[in-house]
């Protein structure tokens, strides 16, 4: 499943459980984020063994965006069998600071920032 837009894109490969987010998420409120949230919740509900959220190419994420991602983390927590990995990049300083907070919602979450 894919969502692509001038400023951003989300690619979900069901077979590998890889979700790649790229570009800049500057959407306004939960309304505009709904398509992305639906894609993420769908991935969580499929309860695969592994889910990887690759944010290395995500340059910018606004507050509604972090809200959307945290809803996904809460949903995926309901599937204890699913191991979650989030990949970030040091190139975007906000990732180092904000992404580790997801571990508060899901202590088992693996976070790799390189």
């Amino acid at each position, binding site marked *: 499943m894919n969502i692509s837009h001038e400023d951003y894109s989300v690619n979900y490969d069901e077979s590998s459980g890889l979700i790649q987010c790229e570009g800049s998420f500057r959407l306004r409120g939960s309304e505009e984020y709904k398509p992305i949230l639906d894609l993420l919740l769908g991935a969580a509900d499929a309860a695969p063994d592994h889910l990887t959220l690759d944010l290395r190419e995500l340059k910018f994420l606004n507050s509604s965006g972090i809200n959307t991602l*945290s809803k996904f983390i809460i949903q995926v927590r309901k599937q204890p069998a699913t191991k979650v990995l989030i990949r970030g990049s040091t190139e975007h300083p906000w990732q180092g600071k904000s992404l580790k907070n997801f571990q508060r919602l899901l202590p088992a979450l693996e976070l790799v920032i390189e």
Partner: protein
Amino acid sequence: MVQELGRLRARVEELEQTNDDLQLMLETAAEHGDELTATLEEEREDLAAMLEMTTEHADVVEDELHERAEAALRKSERQLRLLVEATPTPVFISRLTDDKLVYANTMMERLFGISGRELMDRKTEELFEEPSVCGYLLEEVQKRGSVDRHEACLIRVDGSSVWVEISVRSLEFDDEPSVLFGLHDITHLRALNQASSRFVPKEYLGFLHKENITDISLGDHVTGEMTVMFSDLRGFTSVSETMTPEENFAFINSYLSRVSPIVRQNNGFIIKYLGDGIHAIFPENADNGLRAGIDKLEEVNAYNAFRVDRDRQPIAIGIGLNTGYMMVGMVGERDRMQGDAFSDDVNLTARIEGLTKFYGTSLIISHSTYSRLADPEVYHIRFLDTVQVVGRKQALKLYEVFDADAPEMRELKKDTQGVYEEALDLYYQKRFEEAQSRLFDVLQRNPRDKPAWHHLVNATRLVDTGAPEGWTGVTVMDTK
């Protein structure tokens, strides 16, 4: 009794069962409540965590954006400074709140001959020769946001002045409302322009529709009806013979510097100097030319009073004015040119000027000039003669302007003007004796009236000989 006992036992059992059930229900309900509470607690924690995360994230992003904006600003500031430093023109910035200099580039330091530190904290208006000019520029830039290429004179610390063209823009500098001044040193250019305007006056440039002397090229010209003036010093050759070359130059320049500005003041300009003579034109109207002629003669009268006071010989000049169609423009070759005016009417004007010697008058105008005067009555003008000059077939009516004659002479000419003109009418009607007697009347009252003498001589000759065949009364000149 046994039956009753059995019933009671059954009842006890029933109650016990009910009690167990109730207890179970209570326990179930309590457990369910606990579970609900736990779920709600978890959700509450999730929401609290989300809120905190979102807020923290917002802070992080905000910081990041701020830093990025700051970095971009610092970068653009660095670039701006680099740009301003490398600019080959002097630039300085002054703060609006107290009008003090807060920045000056290297060229500005060089222009003022002091370090930037010494320039700092000086009042902006102290840089200007006229502080009001600074005030004007600041007012304009606040009103319109910019001022371009305003000429002003600045004063260096050592008191020397420097002419600049200033462009001004308002800007924020170190978070304070400020004004940026960009300067262009035009001191040299101004000096050059001033020097060149001595050779090609700015009126002449304007006349040729040119802004700068560098725009002038060979063949630039303007054609149209204009009034030409020639003026000359009387008997200068004999005067100059008694002087050393230095005295000659001093005398000529003293004379020319007195009369030349009069041409300019009357909207004319000098085409060229011809030794002691002046060739000027008045493009606007004939009155400008005549007014300049009269003013020049009056200036010479004042100059003579000055000369006589110093036991020097008084001078006399002759002026001729004519109006006609002519070409004024640049002649010569590409590397050596000068302004000139030419047409038949220009040559004729030189002849008219020459006639002032012949008639013993100081200012003669042609009929074409006379007829273009807005109101000839405001001047003292009388008919002089009809003349055929060398090289021209057509006779020319000439008028004498005696406004600048000595007061008694002017009054006498005015008083006798009626009789004088009557005499000339009679003369042209070949009634020479009557003309002669009127001229006697004139000369009896004003024996120094030279044109009257001229006509009297002619009339007397014709009384004796009678008018030859084809006589028209035209005075034919056979010398230039």
